[in-house]
């Protein structure tokens, strides 16, 4: 299991290859990548991601450990960036490896649902005019936890 909270970007291919190379006895590897989206179509200049050093790593580790246990994963990976990101840049990725794809997919969704609402990150959108807005948490994100 690897958890990385980092300012630098990451190579999707290299991370996926390295993750898959270390796996034994798993027939399914799922990866998910989150990208900075320009919701206002042209209005977004940057996304600033703040986090709580120390708690972030602890929370992500606890979430990933729970996923490994529940879906008997062969391995799990979480990379999440912080700092200032431009539209189109990768924000984060998760990878899961399991014997069968259903477990790998479900575990990846679980990781995503939990790290959206239970890992201490906060997003701020910097708009073209210079104004800035903190992204509000959505009720739907909180509701998504109930299915687990």
């Amino acid at each position, binding site marked *: 299991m690897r958890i990385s909270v980092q300012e630098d970007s990451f190579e999707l291919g290299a991370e996926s290859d390295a993750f898959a190379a270390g796996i034994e006895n798993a027939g399914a590897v799922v990866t998910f990548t989150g990208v900075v989206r320009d919701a206002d179509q042209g209005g977004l200049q940057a996304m600033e991601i703040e986090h709580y050093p120390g708690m972030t790593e602890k929370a992500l580790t606890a979430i990933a450990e729970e996923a490994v246990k529940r879906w008997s994963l062969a391995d799990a990976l979480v990379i999440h960036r912080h700092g200032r990101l431009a539209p189109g840049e990768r924000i984060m990725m998760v990878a899961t490896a399991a014997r069968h794809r259903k477990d790998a997919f479900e575990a990846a969704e679980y990781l995503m649902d939990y790290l959206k609402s239970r890992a*201490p990150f*906060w997003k701020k959108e910097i708009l073209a005019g210079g104004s800035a807005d903190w992204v509000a948490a959505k009720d739907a994100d909180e509701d998504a936890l109930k299915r687990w």
Partner: protein
Amino acid sequence: MDVLYFAWVRERIGLPRERVETNAATVADLVEELRGREDRYAAAFADLSALRVALDQELSDFDSPLDGVREVAFFPPMTGG
């Protein structure tokens, strides 16, 4: 104890962390003390339903006791992913 603020709570109060000497028994008591300090604290803590709290880096509740706690953090609901 150390009190930390993140995101708009940090912006509203105007600092990321501070050392607070307090005898507050619970998080809610600490919030009451902070609210009484200055308008910027009162503004940040106006609506507790918009805030979350962590005690020693674990998510917690406003009625939790502060006994033995070294680090309290206040922040809005998280928006990772």
